[in-house]
């Protein structure tokens, strides 16, 4: 049963990823990206990461993707005749070689390492959210704060960049 779900999520996320890259209409690309994100969140569920599943659906599919679609609708882009880069054929060769190298590394890897301190059984007792929260607010507190400052900087940067270049009429200064 789990193998069936895994096959479904994996195949659909790969197919939707290919569609995101290959479709012509940018809005269709955005909707294909939505399918990728939702099926990747399904993979997270299979890996016992419920909190990450919720964050993926809320933040990625709910916030980031809506932002993309909002900008697409705002700019009202027309579908181009030539929607690939002019010299894209030059990239296909290196991409093929790179993919083969990655597959070679995959086959060669031992996939073993030192086990950590959070086996699945212990995590499932309290729930994944509790485990993530305890870890985040103890060992990863500094990184958490850094991400907070980073997001503040991103908000300010986005506002400054997207602000209208002309001053508003009627303003005194």
């Amino acid at each position, binding site marked *: 049963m*789990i*193998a069936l779900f*895994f096959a479904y999520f*994996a195949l659909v*996320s790969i197919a939707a*990823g290919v569609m*995101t*890259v290959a479709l012509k209409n*940018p809005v269709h*690309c955005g909707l294909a*990206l939505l399918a990728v*994100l939702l099926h*990747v969140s399904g*993979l*997270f569920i299979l*890996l*016992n*990461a419920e909190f*990450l599943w919720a*964050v*993926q659906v809320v*933040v*990625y599919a709910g916030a*980031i993707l809506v*932002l*993309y679609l909002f*900008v*697409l609708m705002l*700019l009202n882009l027309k579908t*181009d005749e*030539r*929607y690939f*880069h*002019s010299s894209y054929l030059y*990239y296909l060769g290196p991409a093929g070689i790179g*993919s083969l190298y*990655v*597959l070679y590394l995959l086959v060669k*890897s031992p*996939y073993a*390492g*030192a*086990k*950590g*301190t*959070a086996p*699945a059984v212990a995590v499932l007792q309290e729930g994944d959210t509790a485990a*993530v929260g305890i*870890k985040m607010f103890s060992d990863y507190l500094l*990184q958490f704060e850094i*991400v907070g400052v*980073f*997001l503040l900087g*991103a*908000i300010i*940067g*986005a506002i400054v*960049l*997207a602000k209208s*270049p002309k001053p508003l009429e009627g303003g005194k200064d």
Partner: protein
Amino acid sequence: MIPLAAYVAVSAILFITGLLGVLIRRNFIIVLMSVEIMLNAANINLVAFSHYLESMAGQLVALFVIAIAAGEAAVGLAIIIVVFRGKLSTNVDELNLLKW
């Protein structure tokens, strides 16, 4: 039980798809979407290793990756809007103002 290699393979295929999208698409917004696919592929890898090696660190790093993707999307789309205002185009091969 799904082997770890299956998750890593899915992640690698998604990553290569996103990389190809960054390299060959002309539309700046689609390029950013392909970057999101690559970040998602990395997240699959992190969570899979976190599960199979029984450590929470991977899930936490994946959370930080999602936060950084949100910031990247906000700033990237703001840049697209500014460029579009001046040039009425979002094709990356026409945006060569900083090229010398």
